[in-house]
């Protein structure tokens, strides 16, 4: 048998590297850790850990049931630790999210539409959150993940709290 050990992080156990400066400002590297951020956030808070113009990577901790979300574009979710269930509904009225809008929107009500399916993601699994659908996440035990999406009304920026500053 192979003695290889591939090191993944988890909410319970993660190690951070860091920036060692020769001649620069560590803030320029916007250095944080998704497990650290997920562990210290409220369940399903969508914390920006990466930003490139309008695009973001949001880290989150999954715990219990999330609200329902929808976006006017595709999004993706990647489980980094634990197990996350994804429920998808085809929006009967895609207009519940402004088609010009960006990012994930929290829906006030249970979405109206046909059930599309259910996905169970474990560590390293990625799912499409397709445009035109609504989704919610469910986790029976704390889990961590990231969204590939666009900055929107649910995106939370707290860079100074999560990033290496000196």
């Amino acid at each position, binding site marked *: 048998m*192979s003695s*290889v050990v*591939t*090191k*993944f*992080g988890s909410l319970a156990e*993660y*190690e*951070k*590297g*860091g*920036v*060692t400066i*020769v*001649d*620069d400002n560590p*803030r*320029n*590297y*916007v*250095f944080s*850790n*998704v*497990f*650290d951020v997920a562990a210290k956030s409220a369940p399903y808070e969508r914390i920006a*850990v*990466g*930003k*490139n*113009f309008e*695009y973001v*990577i949001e880290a989150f901790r999954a715990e219990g049931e999330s609200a329902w979300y929808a976006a006017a*574009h*595709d*999004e*993706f979710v990647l489980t980094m630790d634990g197990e996350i269930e994804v429920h*998808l509904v085809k929006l009967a009225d895609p207009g519940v999210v402004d088609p010009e809008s960006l990012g994930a929107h929290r829906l006030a009500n249970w979405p109206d539409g*046909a*059930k*599309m*399916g*259910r*996905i*169970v*993601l*474990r*560590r*390293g*699994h*990625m*799912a*499409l959150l*397709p445009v035109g*659908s609504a989704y919610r996440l469910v986790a029976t035990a704390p889990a961590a993940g*990231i969204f*590939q*999406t*666009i900055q929107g009304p649910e995106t939370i*920026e707290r*860079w100074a709290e999560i990033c290496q500053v000196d």
Partner: protein
Amino acid sequence: MAMSLVAETHSNPDASRDVETLAMSNETGYRRFRAGKFHFARDEYFARLSWPGGTRTIPIDAFLRALMRDVAWGFFYGTVAFDGIFGTINHYGTVTLYAGKFDDAYRAAGRDYEELYDSPALMSLFREMLSDWTIEGYDPFAAPMETGTAWGKKSGSNEAAIGRQRVTARRMVGLPGDTPVRTDDLGFPVNRDFADVAQDQPLVEAEPGFEGEVSAYNLFGYLSRSDVTWNPSVCSVVGDSLFCPTSEEFILPIEHGNDRCEWFLQLSDEISWEIKDKNSGKPRATVVQKAGDIACMPADIRHQGFSTKRSMLLVWENGSSKIPELIAKGEAPIVAVTF
């Protein structure tokens, strides 16, 4: 929309197409190549480059690894530095071949030199060079422990290694009609250094009619089956937001001086990045990233990564063609976030 890693959007009728494959050396069996006033030759150990006023000698294994990336990535984003002196700058349709342009001493001495090429012309020359100079048993995409050596006189070729199809998902790996999930049957066994990575696929229960949209796959399993190193490939796409994960072992074969901010999310194990100033080459920082660490490379640096244990890295690019101009005009920040 089909999304390639790097799209060609600019053309310039003044860009040179003056490239030429020269005769084979009777001594080594390798061909020589010429692009304008740049000359390229290889011998048993080295690539030997020359241009008006200068020469450069680069170990051939390192040169071929760098050339492989420049070819596979279509000159990539911004600067691909083969070493501290020689490299290419992508203008997305045209490409600059330079020597000494990003070195203080060369510039101060007026010894920097560059020529502008039509991208397809220089690309065809680079492909021929890569094909002629890569010998049987040497795979410039592979980690050093997984391939033979590049040394010696001309001896066979390795078209299978250098002609690999680049992976570019249009929406997400595994969707119907999109790039497939890797399996043993498709010729992608689990890499020796990821032998312990779980290969289970997510549970996907799609209602009738939604099979094409209810979709998920094991990204970590997918990366554990990559047969190449340092080769970011598009796996999921939101507009211009490109997730380009890759498996890394040994040294990034180039110093990458991106023309925009570029993010790294370390998915497994550890990489250390040496950061230098893009223009002067002076050291600025070292960034060590462990699993879960995420960091941004500013747009005014060059970076080179080092990974002992094969690791999984998510390279995150913004493929928008507007960004280099915005940064050049000072209308976009060179750091992604200020706080």
